[in-house]
């Protein structure tokens, strides 16, 4: 029997992206630069997070024309973002044939209470998480891939590190618990009990987990890989740097050789300016994107 859109097929594409870099792009030219640098996929969006931050207003799904231009230009997978809870944008992205939908806090949320029911789609979803409970809630809703939220558009990796460490610590705690503790752990995490039980046994998430939100240099990527993520998303870090093609390539190489500092050193030389960074403490609560969704 031939089946499409199965859990294995959805999660499987994310498995193929492991060890790779997914880059935010706003048009076909940027997508081409990303592909030539060795990106495993591109993420189509209207503005990179740093510009969303700067210009404000409501950030929405990209114009379908832009997405199609990107699809027609590159042969690697094309992902695109929809607003949290905006199942109609998600349906449009599925109709366009994007390879993955990112239900993203970087865009302005459409629903403050509910995320999209991702089981209802053939196209797989990736969702952001700050902690294990959030990751398991999204997986419970059908997400086939998870990423840290970090703090997008800041060029500051500290929040991505915080989120990854939180997830890892919470997973480790589960593996040391007795079976009788798992229901109250599920209650405290706000996570589906079945997923908590499975994780307590395996010690790892049932889906691929990437880093995102604030990765700006090759060493940032190596840092996140060293914390145990499966790969990285780079948003503004490439196209807000002084030399996007060079930066993109260096981040790809540092991601493969994250545990070989001499390679990371070599690829980090002479890259020019990284994107300008923002101190997280300088952001108002309302300017923080990671708090969107629950």
């Amino acid at each position, binding site marked *: 029997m031939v089946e499409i859109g199965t859990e294995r097929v959805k999660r499987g594409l994310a498995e*193929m992206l*492991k060890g790779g870099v997914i880059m935010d792009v706003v048009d076909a030219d940027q997508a081409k630069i990303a592909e030539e640098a060795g990106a495993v996929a591109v993420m189509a969006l209207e503005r990179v997070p740093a510009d969303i931050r700067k210009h404000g207003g409501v950030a929405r799904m990209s114009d379908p024309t832009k997405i199609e231009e990107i699809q027609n230009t590159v*042969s*690697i997978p094309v992902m695109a973002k929809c607003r949290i809870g905006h199942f109609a944008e998600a349906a449009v992205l599925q109709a366009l044939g994007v390879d993955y939908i990112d239900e993203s806090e970087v865009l302005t949320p459409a629903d403050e209470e509910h995320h999209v029911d991702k089981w209802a789609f053939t196209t797989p979803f990736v969702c952001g998480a700050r902690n294990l409970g959030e990751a398991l809630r999204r997986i419970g809703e059908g997400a086939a891939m998870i990423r840290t939220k970090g703090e997008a558009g800041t060029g500051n990796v500290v929040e991505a590190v915080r989120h990854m460490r939180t997830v890892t610590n919470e997973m480790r705690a589960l593996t040391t618990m007795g079976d009788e503790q798992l229901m109250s752990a599920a209650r405290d995490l706000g996570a589906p009990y079945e997923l908590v039980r499975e994780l307590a046994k395996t010690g790892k998430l049932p889906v691929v987990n990437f880093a995102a939100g604030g990765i700006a240099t090759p060493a940032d990527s190596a840092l996140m890989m060293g914390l145990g993520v499966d790969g990285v998303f780079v948003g503004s870090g490439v196209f807000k740097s002084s030399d996007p093609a060079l930066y993109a390539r260096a981040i790809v190489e540092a991601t*493969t050789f994250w545990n070989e500092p001499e390679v990371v050193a070599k690829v980090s030389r002479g890259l020019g300016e990284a994107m300008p960074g923002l101190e997280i403490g300088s952001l108002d609560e309302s300017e923080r994107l990671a708090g969107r969704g629950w």
Partner: protein
Amino acid sequence: MSRVGVLALQGDVREHLRILESLGADAVEVKHPEQVEDIDGLIIPGGESTTIGKMAVRFGLLEPLRSAVRGGMPVYGTCAGMILLADAVTEGDQPLVGSLDVVVRRNAFGRQNESFEADLDVEGLDEFFRAVFIRAPWIEKVGSEVDVLATVEDHPVMVRQRNILATSFHPELTRDGRIHQMLLDMIGGK
């Protein structure tokens, strides 16, 4: 015990290592040219073929891989691995290891929404193989020395030519080790 390398530049390396270990092989990651000399066989995993090819060029792995495969080292490629082992692809000019006398069409079944799993009839296996196809390629043209071991809608999706085995699908995403065992048998000279 056979020492089998998995090319670890990008892709689902871990799944291949796991399945090889479950079959009793000594499975190791290959990221550097000199490591190619220390293995009895090689797997090129699923992943993004353009990324893996570019990284192989940049880090000096393409030539050592070519000469190993030409020299008869048993090698198995899944999906991206099949593309990299092919002599040619229908579109684009990405770096390839080559030696497998076929022309491959990338993403031939379509985008992710068309990705599928199905029970596949594989020559040499008694029972169906649950095959997972993800943005999978198929083989458009087959050379005269290439054996076609499985097809989907008449398109070859599994082939063997001498020391080279290739599938469009991903046995490593299942618990079924029968195709990996074929590679181990090739290494063992069976």
